[in-house]
């Protein structure tokens, strides 16, 4: 921004997300006190935000590029089960389990991307298919191999420290550090490096982007690989953290990450949004789901708040986008 002004801030894609977060913080400060902003309370929602955020950012980038990936809901248990079966059930080295979990993430992402490029079927349908297919594989193979739907995994040493431990006094998951570092990386690549522009161009007008020389197919593949590998990574880290993996669970990530992305100001039709916005949207989501425990309300009410927040976000985002579009520099002020 050439000048920092209130109007200028409102035109940014993360404006709605920032306002939403402030509203939510005030709400919970009034009804639950500020315990959730003290270190102990913060850990509870930071942990939720971190696990969600690592998936929400690449998913949000896909949405900016005009695509969607709901197979992340199956990739979380897939990543968890892979490391648990290889390193827990078979007792092979943990690093092999880690490598295989990430490899499967890459493979499913490549398959998703390939199908979306080659068939021109909407990515919602393609990844709905891979969501069920991967769920089937995870359940089928796990029961076949281990005769159980839950597999234990004991990890020690550096792998535990890096992927699934508590840090800073024992309440904060190491995932929080991953989340912060990855967010910084994404911010650089999306908003500062020249390549970030390509994602927005692709979501704005794919044909024009391709004609302008942007490798849209390759970019689509990369984004799908990023989202499914990130989901597998989160699942793998959770298995290492909790010393076990379940075949079920993970579906909540689908809706939760889409909510975080939309609350974060990403336009559902693509072409508009920001990493910082998704970051704020993720925190907002986590504060609502965890902050409710610090109030006298029943926790079920948090769904109501999230529903309202989502609708408000979509409406606000439309308003902010119109403001951004109609922005023209003031004529009167100039000599």
């Amino acid at each position, binding site marked *: *921004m*050439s000048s920092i002004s209130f109007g200028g801030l409102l035109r940014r894609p993360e404006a709605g997300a920032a306002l939403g977060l402030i509203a939510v913080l005030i709400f919970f400060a009034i009804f639950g006190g500020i315990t959730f902003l003290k270190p102990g309370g913060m850990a509870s929602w930071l942990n939720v935000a971190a696990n969600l955020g690592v998936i929400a950012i690449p998913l949000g980038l896909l949405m900016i590029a005009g695509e969607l990936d709901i197979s992340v809901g199956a990739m979380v248990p897939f990543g968890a089960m892979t490391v648990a079966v290889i390193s827990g059930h078979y007792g092979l080295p943990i690093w092999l389990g880690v490598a295989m979990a990430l490899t499967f993430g890459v493979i499913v992402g490549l398959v998703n991307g390939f199908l979306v490029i080659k068939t021109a079927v909407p990515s919602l349908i393609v990844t709905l298919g891979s969501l069920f297919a991967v769920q089937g594989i995870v359940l089928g193979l796990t029961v076949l191999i281990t005769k159980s739907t839950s597999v234990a995994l004991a990890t020690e040493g550096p792998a535990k420290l890096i992927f699934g431990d508590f840090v800073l006094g024992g309440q904060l998951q190491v995932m929080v550090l991953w989340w912060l570092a990855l967010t910084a990386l994404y911010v*650089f690549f999306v908003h*500062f*490096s*020249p*390549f*970030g*522009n*390509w994602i*927005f*161009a692709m979501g*704005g*007008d794919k044909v*024009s*982007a*391709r*004609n*302008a*020389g*942007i490798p849209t197919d390759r970019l689509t593949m990369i984004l799908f690989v990023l989202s499914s590998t990130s989901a597998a990574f989160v699942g793998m880290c959770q298995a290492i953290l909790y010393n076990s993996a379940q075949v079920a669970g993970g579906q909540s990530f689908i809706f939760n990450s889409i909510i975080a992305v939309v609350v974060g100001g990403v*336009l559902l039709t693509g*072409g*508009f949004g920001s990493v910082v916005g998704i970051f704020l949207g993720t925190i907002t989501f986590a504060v609502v789901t965890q902050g409710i425990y610090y109030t006298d309300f029943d926790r079920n009410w948090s769904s109501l708040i999230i529903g309202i927040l989502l609708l408000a976000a979509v409406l606000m985002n439309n308003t902010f*986008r119109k403001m*951004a*579009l*109609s*922005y*023209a*520099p003031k004529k009167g002020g100039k000599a």
Partner: protein
Amino acid sequence: MTAPIMALRGVNKSFGPIDVLHDITLEVRAGEVLCLLGDNGAGKSTLIKIMSGVFQPSSGAIEMDGVNVTLPNPRAASEKGVATVHQFGGTFPLMSIGRSFFVGVEPAKGWGPFKVYDRKRANAIAVKAVQDFGITRIDDGDRLVGGLSGGERQSLAIARAVHFGARVLILDEPTAALGVKQATHVLRIVNEAKKRGLAVVFITHQVMHAMAVGDHFAVLIRGAVAADFKKGEKTREEITDLMAGGASMASLEAEIEGYMASHGGHPPQPAE
């Protein structure tokens, strides 16, 4: 006389059993505006899609600078200097002027993996390129393209094509959705592009717009070149009639005049 920058020699195009273009021969020269006229469905868009690599001719040849070329895709065409600007500018509504100007060729500063997009430079170059075309109202590269008027968007797209070295500029109905003032802007920019030595192919339904900038006119009727003439060789009425595929426009005008004469000078009311 110089060789034409681009020429079509006996080009035919059919989509399966449907013949859309028949034996089209056309030339576009540097510093000249070729106006492609014709009724809806005459094949104008199909023709320029062949020139810009979107479609392949079923038979016939495309020449550039006197040499046969194939344009397998839009990339290949734009690498040879053929740029197409579509009705709505073909740009990205939610991107800033600077960013959309440089899509795919973003300027960067810094080094190695730490290269960052150079917003200042992108904005400055983009704004200057548009202003050089006389659109001085665009002075902030951070504005979103979607916030510009239709004429400004067209101008931005044309300025972009020229900046990146286009030699043949193809404009598909650039003035169709514009008001009089906006259209005048675009026509002025077409003239400016021509002055800079580009070959311009200009599609329009408005004979007035064509006559304002055209040096050379080709009328398509059902996929064939029905007339090919130079500036000043035909009157507006003749061109209008040709476009409508015969004398129908003149008779329509006579009909309206007759109506007005018998109704005290009032034109017919449009149907409710």
